């Protein structure tokens, strides 16, 4: 479904992504993990078409993609952003935000589709005409997910979708993402710095450091510790150490 080959991204003199390659079959979820500055979000933005200065090959649904994408691409590939407080237009109601993709693509039956979208992300209908500042962080993120799904895409790019949410809300959103993937056979690429979250949702994981993909492994391998690269080992060790609340040391 998605094939990336030798992707390179420069910002001025700095090469933020140095030749990254990976493949994601249809219906699968791929995780990109790494520290801040590792280049993982940059890869996602290049894939989404938001960033046009890249070189290499990006093939989505068997079509090679160039720097400028067409409307058909935007119908197939959508993105969910990290910050729920910035991803919705402050002066537009939920209804308007959800209608916009339909209006741009010329899809009819707007009212029914909006109502269905709200139900699909488990948002009560009474939120339909609220403004973003009247919603909680979790509710906004659900709206963002609903918005991404309005034009019935095949691929969802998720940029740290739960990093800014409380853990209980994170659990709900992650469950929602799993359910949606199963129901619609979506392909996910998720970026996160939280290994536990990525391993929960994704079957294949790419580890990035300093702009390079230092390791490609399955979630099972990561859990079991069948790791080759030291950076991955360090990330896993840290995640496990901080995961469990510390047990009382014997006096």
């Amino acid at each position, binding site marked *: 479904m998605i094939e990336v080959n030798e992707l390179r991204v420069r910002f001025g003199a700095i090469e933020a992504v140095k030749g990254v390659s990976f493949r994601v079959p249809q219906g699968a979820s791929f995780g990109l993990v790494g*520290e801040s500055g590792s280049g993982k979000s940059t890869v996602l933005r290049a894939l989404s078409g938001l960033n046009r200065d890249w070189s290499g090959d990006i093939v989505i649904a068997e079509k090679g993609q160039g720097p400028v994408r067409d409307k058909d691409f935007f119908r197939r590939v959508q993105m969910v952003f990290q910050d729920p407080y910035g991803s919705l237009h402050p002066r537009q109601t939920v209804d308007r935000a959800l209608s916009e993709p339909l209006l741009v693509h010329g899809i009819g039956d707007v009212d029914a589709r909006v109502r269905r979208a709200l139900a699909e992300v488990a948002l009560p209908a009474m939120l339909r005409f609220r403004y973003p500042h009247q919603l909680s962080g979790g509710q906004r993120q659900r709206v963002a997910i609903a918005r991404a799904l309005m034009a019935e895409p095949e691929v969802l790019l998720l940029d740290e979708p739960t990093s800014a949410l409380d853990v209980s809300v994170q659990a709900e959103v992650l*469950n929602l993402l799993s359910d949606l993937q199963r129901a619609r056979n979506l392909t996910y690429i998720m970026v996160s710095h*939280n*290994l536990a*979250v990525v391993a929960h949702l994704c079957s294949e994981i790419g580890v990035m450091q300093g702009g390079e993909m230092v390791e490609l492994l399955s979630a099972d391998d990561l859990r079991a510790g069948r790791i080759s690269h030291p950076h991955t080992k360090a990330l*896993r060790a840290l995640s496990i150490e*901080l995961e469990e*609340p510390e047990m009382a*040391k014997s006096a």
Partner: protein
Amino acid sequence: MQVVVRNLRIAFPSPQGPTEAVRGVSFALGQEKLGIVGESGSGKSLTARSILRLLPRQAQVSAETIEFDGIDVLKANETRMRAIRGKRAGLIMQDPKFSLNPVMTAGQQIAEAWHAHRGGSRKEAKDAAVELLAQVQIRDPKRVADMYPHELSGGMGQRAMIAMMLAPDPELLIADEPTSALDATVQAEILRLIEDLVSRRGMGLILISHDLPLVSHFCDRVLVMYAGRVVEEARAGELARAKHPYTRGLLDCLPSLVQPKPRLAVMRRDPAWLGT
């Protein structure tokens, strides 16, 4: 240095009448590390800030006691509070980009904090600033001292912030979600740094976070807050055996790297937790 808070209540005016954000919170803290954990809206930030009376103007605070080292915080005048804030107790916030002055270099801000509370010459303050930056484990302190906040990474900015707060040699440090904007690796480094500095200087620490396992690693005691009340108080090592369903819920809904869960447990909020 003892902090004592008894029956703290904080309310905000609203069109429907005053709404209480903190509803009867009590705790005491000595030379130890206390973690306050809760989700957004639980009142954890307000609780900690009330010790320094750093609340928004429209907040209505009432309590039986709020004491900092014997000083009655509720009744103290502004001059007394200013002698406490900064000099005896420091506050670190979440995003250094917003809490550091963007038009001054890191070194200048730390030197100013030093100078304001310790006096001395400009040169002494400058040297002290570089020394503090080294203490917060910045590799090239002289170079970083001349950098502006927007040139610093998130982790370095937080270290500069910590250096600034430690300059007057305070007795208490309040850290309000200091690492929520940082990635996992830097988070751990910063918290270890805070833990180390606090232990070495014999300070008290209040660490506020929404991350329960994280807090349990860096604190001696943990308070869990929900909807303005403390629902559980436990020693850090005993959290895994927590009793209150909300605390258990917080722990259970986390994804785990070692234990795959097909579906994450979702918190069922019992209205009984809201108390009377």
